[in-house]
């Protein structure tokens, strides 16, 4: 289990290699990378990610612990950036390693879905009309909710 909250970019290859370093019991790693998307004319700029230092790390660790309680996992990792980000920049990396691929897929999906509704981050997007706080999406609540009913 590993959590990092940082301003700097991350190297996905190095992060995933770190998960399996020296181990031969892992058959599958599923990872998710979230990126800053440019929505075209309506939103041609980057964004600033605000967060709540202290609580962020606690919530990410709780999400990770929950994944380990639900699936047989060899290792997990969450790296989340904050601060100024431009279109195309990486925002977040979630990874789950397991002997088997089904557990790796489900756990990785769970990590990002739960993180999105629990970890205290807020996006302030640049728009041609000025900076605008992104509103939470009902989709994201529904995605997180789906793991509640499967408990």
């Amino acid at each position, binding site marked *: 289990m590993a959590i990092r909250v940082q301003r700097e970019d991350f190297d996905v290859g190095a992060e995933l290699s770190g998960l399996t370093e020296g181990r031969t019991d892992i058959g599958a790693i599923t990872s998710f990378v*979230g990126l800053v998307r440019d929505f075209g004319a309506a939103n041609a700029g980057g964004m600033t*990610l*605000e*967060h*709540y230092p*202290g*609580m962020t790390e*606690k919530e990410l660790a709780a999400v990770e612990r929950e994944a380990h309680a639900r699936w047989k996992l060899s290792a997990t990792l969450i790296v*989340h950036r904050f601060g100024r980000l431009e279109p195309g920049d990486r*925002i*977040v990396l979630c990874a789950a390693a397991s002997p088997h691929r089904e557990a790796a897929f489900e756990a990785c999906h769970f990590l*990002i879905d739960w*993180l*999105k*509704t*629990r*970890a*205290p*981050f*807020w*996006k*302030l997007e640049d728009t041609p009309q000025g900076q605008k*706080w*992104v*509103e*939470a*999406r009902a989709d*994201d609540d529904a995605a997180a909710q789906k793991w509640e009913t499967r408990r």
Partner: protein
Amino acid sequence: MKILWFAWLRTRVGTAAEEVTPPADVDTVATLLDWLATRSPGHAEALAQRTVVRVAVNQAYAKPDQPVRSGDEIAIFPPVTGG
């Protein structure tokens, strides 16, 4: 008691952090929000729509009936949008 404001709630209130000393009968999350709303027009505006207000007590999510006491760190913020 330390109050932290985040995202657009911070913008409305006009400060990221403030130290407050509410009266003794302000002893839950819900009563604290009611009391904070009286502090300024910005506070009132920030707390007008309670359904979009999330509260953490000492860095853990809290429900309206959760007790709060002097020395707590209370964070108030909108639904999160990271990831």
